């Protein structure tokens, strides 16, 4: 990337960052909650993208890490009063071990492609069913964290007004973007992309593909665990049926797919577009007094169909070309 392009990208990014930082001053709580959801999906999509977009390993069960991350931190808080900041690290650790176990099983025994994807679904599904039967998690009745919504920001207990959650998610999403950008330019990024493009050729160039695929899964599961912890302390109620459900996994991956798999801004753009448009449609219909159940899913389907047909690489690449910036 030459200097002029680099500068243009930096300016655009700065404008976007300024707008996002300023948002809570101009937006009401509803808008802030929509923006928080966008950032949540952007962050989680970014985490999924490390595995699929960078290293080419399709996970259709990322709800597993959101759910386990949420339940570990939420459960430790609920049962032992362990604060979110301590629980966060334990949740990350548990999810990394889980990711490593699944990765090891798959890569050690040469399970790849759709079979790998099936394996990820299987793990999410049987964890969902298992959690329904574990008393510690509250079972199907759910786990409810004590809500003590304050007007004061209490970062230590991760309690505060909507703007605090918004800013937390903004920091996470920005951090994930920076981390992914740095990883792409590192040895890991080159090796992952080589594995994604052609595993046999990558191996012939001296890449221990098992080790680097494992790293991708572990990084991705660790990042996703953080979304889970956020989820637990933001929504304060956890149901296996919801959090591990395959529809959540699909929701996570729609953003990056629509935005552009393997790109840095695709997951962000995809999450924004999907959330704004689907909430917009729901609002619009509500304004006319219509409430159509399932309209969101129909909308997702139509958008996905359109993107697959007309922009198979996602909507970010053509926009990036038009703006004259990379990735």
């Amino acid at each position, binding site marked *: 990337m030459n200097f002029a392009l680099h500068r243009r990208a930096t300016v655009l990014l700065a404008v976007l960052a300024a707008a996002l930082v300023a948002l809570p001053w101009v937006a009401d709580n509803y808008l802030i909650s929509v923006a928080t959801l966008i950032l949540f999906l952007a962050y989680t999509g970014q985490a999924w993208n490390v595995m699929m977009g960078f290293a080419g390993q399709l996970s259709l069960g990322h709800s597993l890490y959101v759910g386990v991350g949420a339940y570990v931190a939420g459960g430790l808080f609920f049962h032992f009063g362990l604060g979110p900041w301590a629980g966060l690290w334990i949740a990350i650790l548990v999810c990394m071990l889980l990711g490593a176990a699944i990765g090891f099983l798959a890569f050690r025994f040469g399970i790849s492609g759709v079979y790998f994807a099936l394996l990820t679904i299987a793990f999410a599904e049987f964890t969902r069913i298992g959690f329904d039967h574990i008393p510690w998690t509250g079972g199907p009745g759910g786990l409810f964290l004590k809500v003590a919504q304050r007007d004061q920001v209490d970062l230590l207990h991760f309690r505060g007004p909507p703007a605090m959650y918004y800013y937390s998610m903004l920091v996470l999403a920005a951090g994930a973007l920076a981390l992914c950008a740095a990883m792409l*330019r*590192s*040895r890991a990024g*080159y*090796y992952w*992309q*080589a594995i*994604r*493009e*052609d595993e*046999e*050729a*990558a*191996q*012939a*160039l*001296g*890449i*221990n*593909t098992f080790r680097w695929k494992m790293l991708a899964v572990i990084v991705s599961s660790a990042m996703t665990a953080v979304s889970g912890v956020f989820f637990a302390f933001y929504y304060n109620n956890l149901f296996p049926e919801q959090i591990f459900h395959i529809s959540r996994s699909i929701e996570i991956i729609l953003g990056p797919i629509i935005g552009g798999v*393997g790109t840095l801004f695709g997951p962000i753009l995809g999450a924004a577009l999907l959330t704004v448009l689907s909430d917009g449609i729901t609002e619009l219909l509500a304004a006319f007094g219509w409430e159509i159940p399932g309209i969101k899913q129909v909308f997702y389907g139509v958008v996905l169909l359109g993107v697959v047909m007309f922009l198979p690489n996602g909507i970010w690449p053509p926009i990036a070309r038009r703006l004259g910036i990379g990735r």
Partner: protein
Amino acid sequence: MSLLTAQGLQKSFRGLRAVHEASFELPEGTINALIGPNGAGKTTIFNMIAGVYPPDAGKIHFAGRRIEGLRPDQVCAAGIGRTFQIVKPFAGLSVLDNVVVGALQRSPTVAHARAHARHVVERLGLGAKRDLLASSLTLPDRKRLEVARALATRPRLLLLDEVMAGLRPTECDQLIDVFRDMNRQDGLSILLIEHVMRAVMALAQTIVVLHHGEVIARGAPAEVVRNPTVLECYLGEETEV
């Protein structure tokens, strides 16, 4: 001193004997060709050396070390680079980034690898195309990229699997010059599988001829092309080279 020694290599695929008792050695700093009709077992021998699959029996020594049964990445780390007969570019990456992946094998940092990759890309005549996506290259350029990527791993021995196939004679000659240069300047040893006899005769110091998985002749090009068995099995009576 011999860089690579193969002793009694055997490989069968479900009862089909692909390679039988193949033995040969490649002296350090030489260019050698492996020729023979289709199905003679050339690519099978390549794959056994490169670690794609282990031989059923036999030994492969490289630089004083047993390498049979190692994984492809370990073979590469030991100092053997390879190209694929059906080229395998990283289609979604730029030409330069393709080569950087190879260069990282022996570079401490990405910056170091990029500098080395630029040099290799220039040398293979892809300098003007280094920022293009590999998927946009023509077949001759893809073949060059395949060679550049393998070379970037700084191998002591380069395995070339039919890199000349599909190239026009002038393109072929350019690549011949590149290989000759690398052999003379850097002391790179090369083992090539090739049907293009023009390239074989121009490059190889020794030729190993395979037929039905067995080595039927070995020696200097001039001897091999006059060997009656080779003429009968592969080159044909009328061949003029």
